[in-house]
């Protein structure tokens, strides 16, 4: 037994050993044969880091190819928070000293949550080369700090066209979710507004993709290959740099002039906080200039805007300089709307030029008395005269007539307005466009039924039609809609979708894709409709009693005849909105100029002089500073 027993027991040992080896082999087979592909992928992702570097964006050019938004390369100092790690308390003050900055400013940059955790944070740009070399030579004192060349947005003309051109910022969660398929990553830049946003797909290039081999500590050992970046395409605009400059300058001067003038009705100076100008080519809807005031310098957004600056831009006290008022501002059009009322009345045959109204300064409709805004009496006027002198009484009468004969004409004024594109988005390729509103009996009833509290009045009265006829009441339009409506009249009836992008080009200037003009519809404006209105609008600037005659005194009409319409819109308790829309040369209209200025007084006084300066320059004449045209009439 003593001999047999060890033998037996050695047998047991052998079985145990064989089982253990079998277990190891089985596991080895599983890992290296069955699951190998999965582990191969894992081992590969371990060692490869893919670094995306954004391509320089395409440039934005004016219609003549002049660069409105460019890129420039700047020597920047960036900090990787991860690499600096726990040494930041010691490194930041040292870095601040080298960069001539406050340590707190550097710290604020680094703790700014808007920066992606995946990318080094630019702490300073335009850093002298010597500083970057110094940091490189003392790298152990500056862990995580490096000098790089950043390509950043550069605005050669400062704030010119700022709202229209837009700004670029770091992509946010919503944008990332919406654009994931296009390959955006956290920390990427994306156009946030204006042209930068609308033409994002063209402007954004293809990022440089570099695959790096790294070790277990994340140290880079070498490159496994680089797909070079492809710069984004250039976007050429219909906007003309010179006209844009002219429009912005003139608007600024006009606002200044208004602020220096006294508002008798409110017994204080005009506030004139904001305004906008649109210059459009009525022949194809091209926007030549789009100015909005107040404005801002888009370069503050480069490399991330400081939080306090961003808060300031969005503070109500700053009057929202980021807003493009030409498409976002919604104003009562006032007397500029009389174009629509005239087109409706003449077009529907309700009146002709022989139809006259005796304007005694006021009119009683129902039991309500409606006055001319200035209270003056214009005598017997037909539609031509009524436009020239802006007789409210004449148009009150038309408004009432349309109401009385609504069974025959329906909502003719509203329909005409909508045909002209008022009260709805024009479809221009710019973001955040407002629609405005053309009220009618149905829409008012609908609003009332939906929300009786907010809209206590669900009924439409004759008085509503009367107010509508002179562009007051609940009606609002954007400056661009108004200009586009006058462009439609000026070109004989074609409603264009206003167009701000002209073409997409590559870096060498070869056109890749045109942005063709698009007409929405063609209105029928026969001579018996067109001629009297044109005559009336010409009178506005040229007739001695025309509402804008003062503002256009001395204008070179012989070479460049101009027609237009003033508007003075009441805006609740605020001072009047000043409007003017004009076009010229009326022999072959090439420019429609619209000016809207908030709380600036009569259209004739504030807006018309601004438009005059712009049109005078477009007529090839030297310009003079805008001055407020005092006196005048409300319209």
């Amino acid at each position, binding site marked *: *037994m*003593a001999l047999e*027993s*060890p*033998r037996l*027991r*050695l047998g*047991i*040992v*052998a079985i*145990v*050993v064989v089982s*253990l*080896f079998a*277990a*190891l*082999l089985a*596991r*080895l*087979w599983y*890992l*290296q*044969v069955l*699951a*190998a592909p*999965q*582990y*191969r992928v*894992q*081992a*590969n992702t*371990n*060692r490869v880091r893919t670094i995306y570097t954004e391509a320089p964006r395409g440039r934005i050019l004016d219609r003549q190819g002049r660069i409105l938004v460019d890129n420039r390369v700047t020597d920047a100092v960036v900090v990787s928070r991860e690499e600096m790690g726990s040494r930041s308390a010691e490194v930041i003050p040292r870095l601040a000293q080298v960069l001539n900055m406050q340590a707190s400013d550097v710290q604020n940059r680094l703790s700014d949550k808007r920066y992606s955790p995946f990318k080094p944070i630019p702490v300073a740009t335009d850093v002298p080369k010597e500083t970057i070399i110094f940091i490189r030579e003392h790298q152990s004192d500056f862990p995580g700090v490096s000098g790089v060349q950043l390509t950043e947005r550069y605005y050669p003309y400062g704030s010119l066209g700022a709202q229209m051109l837009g700004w670029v910022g770091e992509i946010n969660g919503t944008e990332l979710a919406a654009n994931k398929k296009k390959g955006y990553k956290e920390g990427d830049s994306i156009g946030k507004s204006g042209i930068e946003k609308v033409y994002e797909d063209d402007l954004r290039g293809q990022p440089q993709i570099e695959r790096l*081999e*790294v*070790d*277990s*500590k994340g140290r880079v*050992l070498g490159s496994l290959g680089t797909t070079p970046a492809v710069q984004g395409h250039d976007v050429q605009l219909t906007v003309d740099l010179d006209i844009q400059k002219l429009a912005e300058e003139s608007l600024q001067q006009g606002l200044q002039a208004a602020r220096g003038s006294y508002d008798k009705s409110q017994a204080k100076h005009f506030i004139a906080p904001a305004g906008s100008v649109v210059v459009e080519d009525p022949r194809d809807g091209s926007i030549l200039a789009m100015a909005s005031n107040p404005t801002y310098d888009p370069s503050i957004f480069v490399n991330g805007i400081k939080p306090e600056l961003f808060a300031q831009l969005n503070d109500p006290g700053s009057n929202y300089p980021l807003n493009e008022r030409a498409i976002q501002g919604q104003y009562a059009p006032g007397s500029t709307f009389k174009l629509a009322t005239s087109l409706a009345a003449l077009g529907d045959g309700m009146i002709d030029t022989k139809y006259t109204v005796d304007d005694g300064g006021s009119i009683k409709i129902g039991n309500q008395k409606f006055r001319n805004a200035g209270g003056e009496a214009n005598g017997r006027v037909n539609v031509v005269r009524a436009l020239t002198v802006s007789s409210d009484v004449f148009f009150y009468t038309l408004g009432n007539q349309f109401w009385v004969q609504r069974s025959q004409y329906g909502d003719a004024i509203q329909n005409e307005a909508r045909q002209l594109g008022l009260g709805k988005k024009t479809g221009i390729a710019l973001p955040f466009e407002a629609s405005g509103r053309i009220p009618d009996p149905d829409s008012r009833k609908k609003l009332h039924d939906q929300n009786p509290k907010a809209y206590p009045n669900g009924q439409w009265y004759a008085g509503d039609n009367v107010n509508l006829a002179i562009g007051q009441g609940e009606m609002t339009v954007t400056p661009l809609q108004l200009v586009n409506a006058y462009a439609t009249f000026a070109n004989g009836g074609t409603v264009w979708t206003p167009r701000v992008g002209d073409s997409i080009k590559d870096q060498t200037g070869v056109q890749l894709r045109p942005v063709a003009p698009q007409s929405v519809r063609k209105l029928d404006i026969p001579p018996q409709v067109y001629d009297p209105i044109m005559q009336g609008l010409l009178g506005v600037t040229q007739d001695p009693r025309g509402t804008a005659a003062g503002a256009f005194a001395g204008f070179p009409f012989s070479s460049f005849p101009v027609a237009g319409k003033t508007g003075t819109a009441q805006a609740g308790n605020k001072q009047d909105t000043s409007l003017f829309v004009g076009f010229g040369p009326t022999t072959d209209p090439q420019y429609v100029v619209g000016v809207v200025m908030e709380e600036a007084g009569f259209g004739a006084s504030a807006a018309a002089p601004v438009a005059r300066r712009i049109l005078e320059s477009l007529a090839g004449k030297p310009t003079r500073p805008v001055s407020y045209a005092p006196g005048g009439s409300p319209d």
Partner: protein
Amino acid sequence: MATASATSVFPLRRGATAAWRHVDLALLFSSVAIAGMGVLMVFSATESKLREQGFDPHMYLKRQSVWVVLGLAVMVVMFSVDYRVLRDIAPFIFAGAFFLLVLVLSPIGSSTRGAQAWFQFGSFQLEPSEWAKLALIICVSAYCATHRGDLDGRRLLTVIGLAAVPMALIYLQPDLGTDLVFGAILIGVLVVAGARPRHIAAICLVAIVGMLAVVQLGVLKQYQVDRLTAFANPTNDPQHSAYNLAQAKAAIGSGGLFGKGLFKGTQTNLSFVPEQQTDFIFTVVGEELGFVGAFTLLALFAVVVWRTWRTATLARDLFGTLLCVGILAMFVFQIFENVGMTMGIMPITGIPLPFMSYGGSSTVANFAAVGLVLNVHMRRFA
């Protein structure tokens, strides 16, 4: 004198000169082959790291080669002297091991990574626990062989007590892995020495309960528990044990059937696997030589184990058998635990892979162990 008749049947195979002719060449060559592969793998695991840190990239290669040569020398010494001498001096061996294990805990010993386990001689280290394994095998085998067929409860307790002393000292270092090897050796020897099945069952039960108690009752430091249990809960990973394990598995798995080629393992060269020249040396084999290489290594180990087992069956006395069984238990447990750990089927403990892991003490001690087996084998007739 049960052996008397055997000697008379084979008179020619008597004496020292005859014994040399019975060297087990299969065991010798397979262990040398493993050690050679080990040198190569250690080189591959360390070359890029050393180069990067500005050291001689051949440093570990040279050192491990020295250990292998030294190991071969010690092996020769170990099989030159009749193994039965060891039986007579077993008490002294035990005392010597005890002395060194106590000494290493004193300030004379050095500690690395939290374990007080080495004597530092210049740039060389001596790890007494590696030698204590052999000492335990010799002493337990000697005791059990002396009391063959008569391992009652009292003697069993004596054996356990004998083992418990060095185990306690090693636990103080602390080196839990080596304690586990001691346990495996003890159980292996006792099974073959003739301990009663219920005693064996009781010992196993106590060992399991004891291990659970050690893990559960907070006797272990938290990092040890985390390491041990990382293979079961990869999400609880304060010491990155699960990360290490994942990297180890990725290294082996990504090697595939034929491996990425010697020196071409990305997991290896880019230092993704920790402790790669020591505890995780198997991942280098797996990644660079693939299933074919890893299988070959396991096959070589199987040859070593098989020849050791065969020697155990052939040994001319129970002491020789038990020596071989103890060494077999030591090798098998270390191979299974170490390779199993890198593949995620065993807990992570710091046990070297015999002949493969970088380290002087373990390499030389392993060759000494092979020397003992060769000793038993070539003296099986005398």
